[in-house]
């Protein structure tokens, strides 16, 4: 269960203002560009400071401005795959995916590498692999940080249709294999329906619709 209560974050053109409880394991957040979807993920990951917020994941309070609780990003156990992936360009694939230092003790590094089929890429530089491979490496890196929640920001947004079709099965496999709660940002409603059990639409910083499948 993810509780996002009294969230207020001033943005350039409007205020992100959200109160919602997400009971399903995989929730898609849809909406037009600039609606505040990425800002919401940043808030959950602890990368932005809200004016007010209560953020709770499976009973663990990550932010509660009323009680002065703001867990640092490194203490939240949130696996975040941003839209630009942010793979460290100076490190090889192996050092990228094991950067978190957890070594995948909880979910098994071998299982992650196998599921995402990236064993053969380990010694390559991240700048030398394809877009689809980079996507899988970023997913593996987030999974191996032992997250209680996975945030995926437009994971297929920058890929062409052919590559999308190749990467989507990996996302489904991650969803079904590791059973980690997921917030999946996309502006593609078909993609949202394919992956998520519940869809939340955000427009101008507010929730305009919430429906479960």
């Amino acid at each position, binding site marked *: 269960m993810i509780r996002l209560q009294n969230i207020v974050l001033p943005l350039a053109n409007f205020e992100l203002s959200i109160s919602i409880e997400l009971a399903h394991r995989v929730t898609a957040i849809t909406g037009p560009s600039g609606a505040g979807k990425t800002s919401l993920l940043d808030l959950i*990951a*602890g*990368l932005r400071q809200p004016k007010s917020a209560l953020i709770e994941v499976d009973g663990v309070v990550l932010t509660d401005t009323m009680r002065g609780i703001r867990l*640092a*990003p*490194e203490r*939240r*156990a*949130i*696996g*975040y795959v*941003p839209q*630009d992936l*942010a793979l*460290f*360009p*100076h490190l090889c694939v192996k050092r990228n995916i094991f*950067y*978190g*230092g*957890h070594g995948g003790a909880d979910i098994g590094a071998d299982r992650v590498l196998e599921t995402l089929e990236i064993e053969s890429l380990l010694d390559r530089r991240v700048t030398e692999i394809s877009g689809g491979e980079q996507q899988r490496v970023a997913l593996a*890196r*987030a999974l191996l*940080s*032992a997250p209680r929640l996975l945030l995926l920001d437009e994971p297929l947004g920058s890929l062409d249709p052919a590559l999308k079709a190749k990467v989507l099965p990996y996302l489904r496999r991650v969803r079904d294999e590791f059973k980690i709660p997921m917030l999946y940002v996309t502006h593609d409603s078909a993609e949202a329906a394919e992956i998520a059990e519940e869809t939340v639409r955000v427009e101008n910083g507010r929730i305009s619709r919430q429906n479960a499948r």
Partner: protein
Amino acid sequence: MTSEDWQLIRFTVWAALVSVAIILPPGLALAWLLARRSWPGKSVVETLVTLPLVVPPVATGLVLLNLFGRRGPLGKLLQGMGIDVVFTWRAVVIALSVMSLPLLVRSARAAFEGVNERYEAIARTLGRGPFHVFFTVSLPLAYRGILAGIILSFARALGEFGATIMVAGNIPGKTSTIALEIFHSVQLGNDWHAWRLLVVSACIAFAAVWASELLLRKKTR
């Protein structure tokens, strides 16, 4: 070249290296803070750090002389611990450090600003604290600009004159550096000696810049 000349060259290079080593940790920390954080008084600190670049070096030397002189606040404190600063090698190192700090901070700051903040943010979400992220993400990604800053500040320290002569004087075998000795030689009409030292000084600076270029090329490959 006489043995005094070699001693002078060794001392100058040593003092420049020590001053760069001294300013490196606080310089990098300050550069990162200026690049990444907002804090009260930031613009004042920014201006203070740049000041030695725009104020005449002798004026900076005068400030140092008043700070570290026997009646100065820091001088008195160090005197109490049995440490003399003014007109010793320590004064040379302090003058070189103060004069070369702005170049290091400016280059390193620009280098940190050039690193995509998203890398640092995502590194934090992976469970790593700010210090680990600094040493494994920020520093390696900014190394080109930082290396350029180190070379620039070393070269600046090699050629420093105004602040050094104010706070350390020009005592042969004790505080004399290549720049001070060039000036001294010209004053005595010993132009040939001055030219010899100038060539040595240029060679050292050339070698430093060349070595950094080679290092950068090797790292890029």
